[in-house]
């Protein structure tokens, strides 16, 4: 067959694509269990980090059992416990539902000093893709104890800075409810404008859309917990 002809070229391209697709599909399927396992460990590390417990991939499992273990449950918008395993709730699916139908996972963590913290998972949109995080609250269910954020593909050096301590640390001590007891969430504002405000934190210069995304995510995900948090 003429190696430079159209027929040969088309055939060559088609066969190549099918072969490559088959190889990659097989590989992706066979590696999936390992990847899921890693993702679960990473999730536990994230959850622990929101209550300021540092862990590594090796001891995350053990520490999670220690501090949280079975103390995780799912509630509905009225603050009542419902069936379900908090850890396996797929937040990506939940945030697409309306606030009334969502499952709201919550993790209770007993720290070494006897304090109980409430950890709430978050999920929202950044600039390029999904962002997520965990925010932990003190026993008063109002004051933020810690927050941690992750992202799929925000710009390194700009939006991706939401994963740094510099961005996350200021959340500690902020409050979800204002003095009259109304839910006000925490807003991410332009750098330097958050001083002294209990409901605002500094955003990232150059990462405005991601910063605002974090604020929107907090509001969107925390609103449904209002009844639970007020009890």
């Amino acid at each position, binding site marked *: 067959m003429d190696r430079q002809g159209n027929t040969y070229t088309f055939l060559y391209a088609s066969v190549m694509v099918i072969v490559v697709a088959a*190889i990659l599909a097989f*590989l992706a399927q066979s*590696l999936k269990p390992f990847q899921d396992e890693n993702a679960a460990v990473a999730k536990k590390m994230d959850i622990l980090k929101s209550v300021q417990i540092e862990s590594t991939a090796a001891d995350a499992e053990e520490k999670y059992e220690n501090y949280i273990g079975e103390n995780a449950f799912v509630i509905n918008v009225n603050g009542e416990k419902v069936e379900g395993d908090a850890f396996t709730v797929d937040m990506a699916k939940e945030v697409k539902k309306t606030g009334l139908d969502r499952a709201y996972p919550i993790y209770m963590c007993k720290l070494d000093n006897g304090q109980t913290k409430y950890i709430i998972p978050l999920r929202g949109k950044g600039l390029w893709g999904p962002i997520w995080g965990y925010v932990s609250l003190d026993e008063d269910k109002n004051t933020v104890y810690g927050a941690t954020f992750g992202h799929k593909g925000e710009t390194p050096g700009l939006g991706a800075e939401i994963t740094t301590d510099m961005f996350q640390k200021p959340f500690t001590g902020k409050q979800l409810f204002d003095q009259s007891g109304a839910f006000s969430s925490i807003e991410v504002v332009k750098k330097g404008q958050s001083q002294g405000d209990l409901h605002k934190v500094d955003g990232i210069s150059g990462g405005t859309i991601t910063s605002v995304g974090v604020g929107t995510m907090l509001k969107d995900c925390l609103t449904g917990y209002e009844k639970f948090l007020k009890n």
Partner: protein
Amino acid sequence: MSSEKEALFSAKNLKLITTPLGAQNPITIQVLGICSALAVTVKLEPAIVLSISVTFVTVFSNLIISLLRNTIPSRIRIIVQLVVVASLVIIVDQVLKAFAYEVSLQLSVFVGLIITNCIIMGRLEAFALGNKPWPSVLDGIGNGAGYGFILIVVAFFRELLGTGFLTLPGIGAMQIIPDVFYEWGYANNGFMILPPMALVVVGIIIWVQRSRNKDLIES
């Protein structure tokens, strides 16, 4: 084609490995693949992992393209090369996600960007399309190693001077500069962590290399 068989590691073949390490180094001489050299050299560990990944991709893409070289229709050869490189990169990405999850998070987009690393396509076009599989494999090892070598040297200095630590795969962070030094007034150079210093370190390597080997100096 000559009928006599060439030894696997003949002088000519070994040269394929050694020249990219020195006189034909992809980063310092050909100035290819600079972007990733700047981005992942903050710590030693991701630099080592990326070096291994790139070497894997250069070796196997060279091998596959060399095996296919007589069948590839010349009009779509770039596309064929891209498909091969992209598939190998996806394999690397998936394997890292399964077995080196944290490193894969650190490398994030840079694993995917191996596809666009000019070294790989450059070697496919310049070497694998016109040579037999074995020399192509050696050429891949040489260029991957030449790239990785520079990456590791740069990362070594940046992490050591920037943080006082060195991170190795499987071992984790080790403090290299003892606490006593800090008590005596030594301070980490935070500037080393920032991207511009990667460029400066690469520049210093290029300078040292050219001052030792005058042949490399362009007139």
